[in-house]
């Protein structure tokens, strides 16, 4: 049997078949989780927010334009949710590598090249998590969700110049942090 398209699955969900939504979750949960992880910097929170994002997506599915792909929609929704979560957090949680991630990653770091690559990845993620939430969301939406300045402004409900300013400042700060990490 041919696999149902995202559009078909959305329509079936709207017609009352939650199993169809389950198929959408299975298809996009990893990418949504990674959006959350990049923004939150914590695996457990990222899993919780992934779940919340899909639940919210389910409840707002009527607003989804079925002519558009489902993936970017649910990922952008997740990014917004994480951004709001960070803004509501009091005091702002300092992003850290999850304690459960470290041994796992380290266990794979046997070949030297892989280790260097992982360290580089960790340094950029570490730098990313040191940015304030509004800078993190700007990087996420532009670099990972490929949104234009206008689309970012619409998503964040901010003037386009503010979004542009956040993005440029975020990049400059990232570059600065990465330079500090270099040996």
């Amino acid at each position, binding site marked *: 049997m041919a696999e149902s398209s995202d559009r078909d699955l959305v329509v079936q969900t709207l017609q009352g078949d*939650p199993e169809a939504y*389950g198929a959408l979750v299975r298809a996009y949960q*990893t990418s949504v989780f990674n959006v959350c992880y990049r923004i939150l910097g914590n695996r457990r929170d990222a899993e919780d927010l992934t779940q919340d994002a899909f639940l919210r997506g389910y409840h707002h599915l009527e607003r989804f*334009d079925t002519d558009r792909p489902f993936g970017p929609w649910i990922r952008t929704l997740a990014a917004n949710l994480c951004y709001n979560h960070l803004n509501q957090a009091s005091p702002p949680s300092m992003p850290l590598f999850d304690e459960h991630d470290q041994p796992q990653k380290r266990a794979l770091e046997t070949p030297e090249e892989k280790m260097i690559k992982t360290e580089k990845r960790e340094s950029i993620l570490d730098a990313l998590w040191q940015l304030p939430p509004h800078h993190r969301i700007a990087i996420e939406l532009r*670099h990972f969700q490929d949104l234009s300045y206008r689309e970012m402004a619409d998503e964040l409900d901010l003037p386009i110049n503010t979004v542009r300013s956040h993005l440029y400042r975020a990049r400059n700060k990232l570059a600065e942090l990465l330079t500090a990490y270099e040996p």
Partner: protein
Amino acid sequence: MNHKQPPTPSSEKDHLSETELHAYLDNELSLAARERAGRHLAACSQCREALDKLEGLFHRLEEIPELPLREDLSNRILDQIKSERDSAPALPWIAALQAALAAALLPLTIPTLLKSPFTKTLVAAWSRGILFTQGFVLEEVGAWYTSLQALRDQIATTIRSGIHLPSPFLHFAPLWSLFLFAALVGILGNALLLRSKNQVPNGNHT
């Protein structure tokens, strides 16, 4: 540099501003500004170097690999959806119940309505061709206002007297008319509610 201003194209001889470099890589410059920036970059090693540095950051971000999930979350999410759905009142059943009650009210109101002076007035106005005239509408609104005032007084009197309940068919014609109106509004409201629930409108998620 001023981040608050949109990227403005500099002259070809000037170095590119930081804003222009960002917008160039983001493909957010106008075609003319992009061409001008491209010509400048081809000739200026300093700006080229700044651009490469920024591009390097873009590549570093692209290199972040996806982390695998430790477990499939779909069951957890579906369980949550199903439990929410089971605990929520079923909207179509509520709507069906309201519609049934409204339908039951309709036959009760029809005999009263047919006998009411207002129906006779409407029929007379229709035959005279003045049904939709402003004068007629205003006159009727005034009459209804007076009737409602009378109804209010009747209710107050009934409440005060406590024992002597008048027959609603005789004395409460405006009340039955209100029931009819409420029933029609209920049916229409539920129809609109169900229609909007089954629609898939376009637009953002938020």
